[in-house]
Structures are given as structure tokens and as C-alpha cells.
């Protein structure tokens, strides 16, 4: 790999108080070190978000150094401790993506350690030189929107989604969860502005990013306007005008997903597989795990979130049901979140890889534990590629049929639980009964919340965009409803509902804990735990 001509470019984030001063000391002491690094001063190493590392790599850096005060010396008491946790997570994600943790390094360099700064630079530059250039393709210049044909494009979106049929009855507003707390937002006004020919929605207005695409409005609209489709179309245009969303985790998720779209790196995404689980390389049934392995690393510090437990539970259910599923390390993100944040191009790249992979596995049935993946396959992929010759189903549908066939045996342990219909599983895909039937089969009595099935309340955020105080209110509303049922836990069949609702429980809210304090569990985990 060593290339004599290859000069690595390195981004170094140095904390203001220690490492940047250390670099200064190295300079004024005239210590020699390679000039490959561009130093970016941050107030604290704790300021460095994992996303910074991915952004730097996406923009062409070959390596990223993060340097801060020694543990115990932080000028903000514990910023560097946070940095340590964050970088540990970053390293794991880099490994899983196949980029490797060696492209990133965290060092503690104090203001008096000019020597250490210089040697770290030397050392890290050599390390990167050995690794060779960053395998990510050079970022192509961003597509710039053309204001000239924007109206035409908007009209096409309006036509495709039936938005011309809007009679402004306002029913969408009455059921919109966002409109409940954000008085400036209403689905119909976004449509109205577009159909009046105003382009501000796309060019500057954040309304297109405010929508949580939960499809309450779609399901209620008397005239069947595909509002979420309309919003998605608008977002695709908006990003070209730099009208972009505020993304959760600074955009880390999208970055991880994009990297899967633009590279063919060998990932390491099967760390969750335990020896007792039986999987195959080829077979009739493919289990598409989704991004769960990445979420497992990213949300490692959330004590109630054991994301790895979900695919483990799914394979356990399948094995007990006599199925040895194909699980592949070469699976990539389905592209759902990119597609819903204005990046359909990446969706298409990911789609090709996934569909090829499934076809080569010989599977005739694909099972999903993530409703977003299922939605993307069943609706978006098939829209783009035509109908697939393999069947696609949610784990709840598979579990339901295995129970019906008498292939799953459960312990007798009657429990009372309530079920959260996620927007993708429920309103988008219309799957309401299978998860309930599967739970009933596992000796669970379902107690329904006030707003259930097609009226189920949103978990607050979708596609890792626009997580704000409205999201938090929606999450609290949902947990209150769940708590009120008297159920021992809230079960959901969606990774995102699980992550978002747990987020409320693990963070401070102004709501008394006893009103919302209910365990949130994944459907597959509940079913697998009840197996004999």
C-alpha cells in the first residue's frame, strides 16, 4: 500500500487549553514534525462530535486526530471523558464500516508536552501513510438547484402526489402531531404555498423539514393527497438550495449510511451473532437486519437499549421455527433515512447492492425486523425497479404464521403489554394485526392506548432529522398514554420508536417520572424471551 508519493492529509482537532498550546510549544521550540495536519482549534475535545470525524473523512481527509487535556485536567471538568466515550464509539463504527479505527486517533497532550505533540504527529502521519489514501471517493461537487425550473419541478411533485386535489378542509392539521405543538406548522399550508407557486418552501422555509412523515395526514385526507410523498419530493429539491435539515447526532447517521452507498468496503456488521444462533450463506429465507449493528455501537451508552438483542431475538425465533436464515455481512443500509432527507441518489446506489445481494443468496423470502427497511423495499425499491420475485415480510408477520402453524411453543407467563404501531409498520404498510396476534400467541394480553392502530401517535422524529422540543412533547404524550394503560411495558416493532422513546426515559424531562415511567421493549425480544 505504501506509496512514495502519497502525502496523507490529516485533520487534527486540538483543544484550546492543552493540545493547541502543546502544538504552539512544539512550534516555538522549533521541533520538526510532518506538515500533513491541518489543525482545527476547538474549545474542548468534548466538543468533537463523532460526526466531525466522518465529515472530515467524507471531505477527503486520510486521517483524523483528536487531542485534548489529560484525564483529570479538563478545563470543563469532564469534557475529555465525554470525548473518550465518543471516540470509542467512533472507532467501533469505523471498524464496522470497514474504514478501520486506525484512521482516527485520540491523544491526550498537555500544554507542556510539545515533544509529545510532535512525536504524535510524526507517528500518526506514518500510520496513515502505511494505511494509504482514504478509500472514500472524492466528494463530487454538490448539485446546485436551478431556480428557473423549480416551479416546474414543484408542479410535477404536486401532480404526482395528488396535492392539486387538496380542498383545504384542514383535516390534516387536526390530526398532525407536529401542528399540535407547533402552531406555525400545518400540512395544508405547505401544500397551499406550493400550489400557489411559491417556491419559498423549497428554497428557504424549514417547514419541509418540520414534518415527521408519520402519515397521519395521508391516512385521514379525504382526497387521498400523498402528503408524505409530497414532502419527500420537496426535500429532494430543497437540499439543492442548501435548505437542509438539522440532523440528529450532527448528521452522523446520514454520513454512515452515505459511506455504505459510495464504497464497497468489507464491513464488520455481524458482531451481534452469538454461537448458538444458526445462520446460512444461502437459503430460502434472508433476514435483513437493517442498521441495527451500527445503532448498537452508536447508542452503546444507553443502558436500556440493547440493540444487538433484536437481531439475536429474530434469529432465535426463526431457528425455533425451523428456519435457518441467510444473514449477510455484505448487506448495506436500505437508504430509508437518506431518501427521506433529500438524497434519493444514495438510495438508488444502496438499492442496487441490496437487491443483488438478495438475488445472489437465492432467497425467496426476505424478513425484516425494521419496518423502515420493509417500507423501503416494498414501496420505494419496487417503485423504482418493478416488482421483485421474492416475498417481503415483517418479523411480526413471520412470527404470526409460525405460531399459527404451531411451530413456536411459549412458556406460560401471562403479561399485560401495550403495542406502539410505528408509522412505517402501521400507516405506511398497513400491518396492524400481525404484531398483536404474535404477542397474543406469546401469552401477552394487549391493552390498547387511547390512540392506537392508524391513529397511533408518533415517536417524534423520523429519518434522524429535526429532533426538537416538539419531538420531546410527542414522545412524552405517547409514554403517558402507554403508562395510563397499566401495561407492564410498551412493545414496538420499530428500531426508531425504541430508540426515541427510550431517549425520553433516560433523559431529564419536566414531566414527573411516574407519569411516563414504562419500559419500552422490542417485539422480537418479547417474543423470543417467551419461547420455551
Amino acid at each position, binding site marked *: 500500500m505504501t506509496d512514495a508519493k502519497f502525502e496523507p492529509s490529516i485533520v487534527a482537532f486540538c483543544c484550546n487549553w492543552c493540545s493547541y498550546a502543546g502544538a504552539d510549544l512544539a512550534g516555538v521550540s522549533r521541533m520538526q514534525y510532518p506538515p500533513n495536519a491541518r489543525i482545527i482549534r476547538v474549545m474542548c475535545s468534548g466538543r468533537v462530535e463523532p460526526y466531525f470525524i466522518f465529515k472530515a473523512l467524507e471531505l477527503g481527509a486520510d486521517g483524523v486526530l483528536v487531542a485534548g487535556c489529560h484525564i483529570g485536567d479538563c478545563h470543563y471538568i469532564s469534557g475529555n471523558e465525554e470525548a473518550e466515550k465518543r471516540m470509542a464509539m467512533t472507532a467501533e463504527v469505523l471498524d464496522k464500516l470497514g474504514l478501520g479505527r486506525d484512521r482516527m486517533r485520540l491523544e491526550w497532550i498537555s500544554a507542556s508536552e510539545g515533544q509529545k505533540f510532535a512525536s504524535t504527529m510524526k507517528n500518526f502521519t506514518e500510520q496513515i501513510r502505511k494505511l494509504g489514501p482514504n478509500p472514500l471517493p472524492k466528494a463530487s461537487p454538490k448539485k446546485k438547484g436551478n431556480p428557473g425550473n423549480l416551479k416546474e419541478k414543484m408542479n410535477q411533485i404536486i401532480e404526482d402526489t395528488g396535492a392539486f386535489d387538496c380542498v383545504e378542509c*384542514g383535516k390534516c392539521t387536526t390530526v398532525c402531531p407536529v401542528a399540535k405543538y407547533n402552531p406555525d406548522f*400545518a400540512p395544508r399550508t405547505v401544500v397551499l404555498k406550493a400550489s400557489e407557486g411559491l417556491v419559498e418552501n423549497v428554497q428557504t422555509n424549514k417547514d419541509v423539514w418540520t414534518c415527521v412523515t408519520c402519515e397521519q395526514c395521508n391516512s385521514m385526507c379525504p382526497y*387521498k393527497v400523498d402528503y408524505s410523498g409530497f414532502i419527500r419530493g420537496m426535500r429532494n429539491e430543497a437540499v439543492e438550495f442548501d435548505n437542509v435539515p438539522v440532523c440528529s447526532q450532527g448528521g452522523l447517521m446520514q454520513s454512515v449510511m452515505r459511506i455504505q452507498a459510495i464504497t464497497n468496503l468489507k464491513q464488520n456488521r455481524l458482531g451481534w451473532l452469538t454461537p448458538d444462533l444458526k445462520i446460512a450463506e444461502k437459503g430460502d429465507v434472508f433476514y435483513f437486519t437493517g442498521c441495527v449493528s451500527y445503532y448498537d455501537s452508536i447508542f452503546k451508552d444507553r443502558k436500556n437499549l440493547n440493540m444487538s438483542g433484536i437481531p439475536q431475538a429474530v434469529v432465535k425465533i426463526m431457528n425455533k421455527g425451523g428456519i435457518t436464515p441467510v444473514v449477510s455481512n455484505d448487506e448495506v443500509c436500505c437508504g430509508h433515512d437518506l431518501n427521506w432527507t433529500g438524497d434519493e441518489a444514495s438510495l438508488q446506489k444502496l438499492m442496487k447492492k441490496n437487491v443483488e445481494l438478495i438475488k445472489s443468496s437465492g432467497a425467496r423470502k426476505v424478513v425484516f425486523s425494521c419496518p423502515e427497511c420493509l417500507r423501503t423495499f416494498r414501496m420505494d425499491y419496487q417503485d423504482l425497479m418493478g416488482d421483485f420475485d421474492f416475498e417481503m415480510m415483517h418479523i411480526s408477520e413471520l412470527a404470526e404464521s409460525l405460531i399459527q402453524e404451531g411451530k413456536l411453543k411459549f412458556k406460560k407467563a401471562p403479561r399485560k403489554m401495550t403495542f406502539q404501531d410505528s408509522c412505517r409498520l402501521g400507516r405506511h404498510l398497513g400491518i396492524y394485526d400481525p404484531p398483536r396476534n404474535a404477542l397474543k400467541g406469546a401469552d401477552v394480553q394487549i391493552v390498547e392506548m387511547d390512540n392506537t392502530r392508524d391513529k397511533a401517535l408518533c415517536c417524534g422524529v423520523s429519518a434522524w432529522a429535526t429532533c426538537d422540543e416538539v419531538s420531546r412533547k410527542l414522545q412524552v404524550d405517547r409514554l403517558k398514554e402507554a403508562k395510563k394503560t397499566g401495561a407492564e411495558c410498551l412493545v414496538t416493532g420499530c428500531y426508531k420508536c425504541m430508540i426515541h422513546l427510550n431517549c425520553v426515559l433516560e433523559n431529564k424531562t419536566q414531566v414527573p417520572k411516574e407519569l411516563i415511567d414504562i419500559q419500552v421493549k422490542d417485539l422480537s425480544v418479547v417474543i423470543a424471551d417467551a419461547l420455551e
Partner: protein
Amino acid sequence: MEKSVMVIGGGVAGIQASLDLADKGIIVHLVEKSPSIGGRMAQLDKTFPTNDCSICILAPKMADCFSHPNTNVITYAEVVGVEGKVGSFKVKVQKKARYVDETMCTGCGECLEKCPSKVPSEFEMGLANRKAIYMPFMQAVPRVMTIDKEHCLHMTKDKCGNCKKACKREAIDYEMKDQILEIEVGSIIVATGYDVWDPSSSTEYGYGRYPNVFTAMEYERMINAAGPTHGHIERRSDKKRPVKMAFIQCVGSRNPQIGHPYCCAVCCMHSTKEAMLAREHHDDMESTVFYKDMRACAKGFYEYVERAKRDYGVRYINSDATVQENSETHNPMVVFDVGGRQQSEEFDMVVLATALVPRKETLELAKVLGLKADEFGFLESTDRILNLGRTSVPGVFLAGYAQGPADIPESVAQGSSAAAKAVEAMVQAGA
């Protein structure tokens, strides 16, 4: 051949058609499915835009229709087969056994007191009970009892027999059988009316889940002095009288998603009327009508709405609405949109202007008669503009809501129109 016409459906359109024909000297066989003629209009409290008492203006017509020398009113009966063509149709009518001899019963009601079975009354929209032997409402025509065999203890369990013991005229006959009548007529008028759509499947309104959400037809019965609450407006949850009333329009109608894309044509007006009547009952009533578009377009209709605003303090809000509930007070919370802002307001009672939809039985009848249904499920005319009410089957005509949304005056006009067409068809066929 004797000139005769069969009218199917004894609502206001069918009654009008029958009277017109009978007055011309034509024999009319009026076939009605339920035990009494009168139809939907008999259930309404008042009519717009004059606030006339509905049954008060209908009952004389019902009585005229029944006692006219040229009419043969066959209630509790359905058309099951038709043969022949214009001028000489042979119609098979199944007259269901009512287990009461129509010629003997005087409708005195002594049997009612003795009957132990209680059944939700169809006429009262389930808000009150009737007995297994019953007359659907006080002004029913014919004024005779009917035994509902599904709920009669004698029929189901071979017990009781109280009504037979109570009847001094020995009108009760448990052994009565369904009869098939074969009737020859020159032409046929179909006036089978509409059904009220059940809004419980549209969960956003909470009907069936929240006790204080009512349908407009339930409300019509409730405010009627002869109705289940003797004209008192009562909440289901606590029997208290509401003060703040919300009327929600287009519930299930103008909604292609649900499958009723059409406008029902009467709800803007009947909700306005219902809001006015609330105020007429009690001075402190505050009503709000949530509407998609105000469609009050006939003589005096918009003025009626203006009068509701001006004289009855009715508030109109241009928004569709959905309903939540305050679970402690059972007060419905109406959520609506004002200028793109979500608002919600607590009311004591919500009344839903539910869609009026084609009857399933009408579609069955259409098969028997060879009629076509339109895209909405109503019966289709050969020409909706210039030949409304004439069907693709010569000698078969339509009137009233069965052919599409129509209010009372329009249904009456269509009844007369169908009567004229029926005569014309017979004359042309040489009958």
C-alpha cells in the same frame, strides 16, 4: 289491461309518486320493506328551511296514500323477482309474515304492555327500546302491530304467548307464513332512499368510543318531542343537558378515501337546522358548525344560514374537524384548523353529519330489475341532465335519494316526475 304501477319504497318520494298516480285513476301497488310507510322523513324532527314539523306535514300524506281507493299499500314486503317488459311486468313480491292479521289489528297497544322482550328501536336509532311486538312509531301507517320473530320469545323459545292472550281481537297468528304475491303492472318506480353511514369505522371522530358523540339522525330523534328523550337533549355519559354543541359536516362524505366522494346535499342545511333547534329548546345553547364548504344553494337556503348566525348565535368555522376526548369529563374535544393553525376546543356534545349512502338492498333490487348503479352506488338514469329518473330499462323509473343526493322538496318533485313518466310509458306501450 288495467293501468297499474308498482312503487317500490314508501318514503316521501314513493308516497308522492303513488298519490299522483292514484289521483290520475291509476292503480298503485306501493311496496314498503319496513312495517310502516313514511321513510326517513318520518324520523326527522323539523324540515328546513321553514322549520315545519316533519311528521306533521308527512302524516296526512301517509294517511291519504294508504286510504286512497286506488292504492294498495303492501308493507313489510320486498320485491324478489320481475319478469316481462313495460306494459306488462309480472312482479313477485315477498310479503313477510308479520304474525298479526292486518285486517283485525287496531293498533290499540295492549299487546305491547305484555311483551317482555326489549329490542333497540330502529326508528329511534337505538336510543330507545321497542318490544318484540311493535309499531315502529306512533303515526305508523298502516296502524298495525308487527312481531319481530328474531326477538319474540314465543317464536324463538316457544315460551310466553302474552300478546296472543292480551289481544281481544284475536289478531295474533304465530303460524302465519311469508306470502309470495304476483302482481301485474305496466311500469315500476324505484324510490328506495338512502342509508345512514356508520361513522364508527372512521376512528378520528370517536363515534362509538366517546359517549357524547352522536350522529345527526340520533340527534333528530333526541330533539323530537315524541322521541326517546321526549325532546330533551341528553349526553350519553351523564344524561346532562349540553350547552356547547359542535356539529361536524362531511363525516364520511366528500371523501374518496372512504368511498363516498359526493356531497350529500342536505347536511349543511340540516346541521344549521339542528343548531337552530338547540337554541329554540334552550336560550343558553351555543352551537358551532364545522364545515368544509357552505353548500346552502336553493331558494331561501343561504338566508336560513344567515338567520342561524344572526338570530340563533350559531358560529360557523370553515374547517374539517376531528374529535378527541377529555377522559375525565367525557367532554369531546374538537380539533380544527384556523388559518393553518391547529386549535382545539372542548364541547359538551358533538353531532356528526354522517354521509347518506346508497342502500345495499337497493343494489340487490337493481340486479332483479336489471338497473345500473353509478360510480357512487346510486341508481343510474339514462341521462343525468335531461332525463333524470329514466333508467335503461323501459318502464322502470327512479325517484328520490335512491338515484342520488336529494333533499325533501327535490325528492317530492322527482316522485311526481317519475309518476308522469310511468304513465307515459304505459300509454306508449299500449297498456
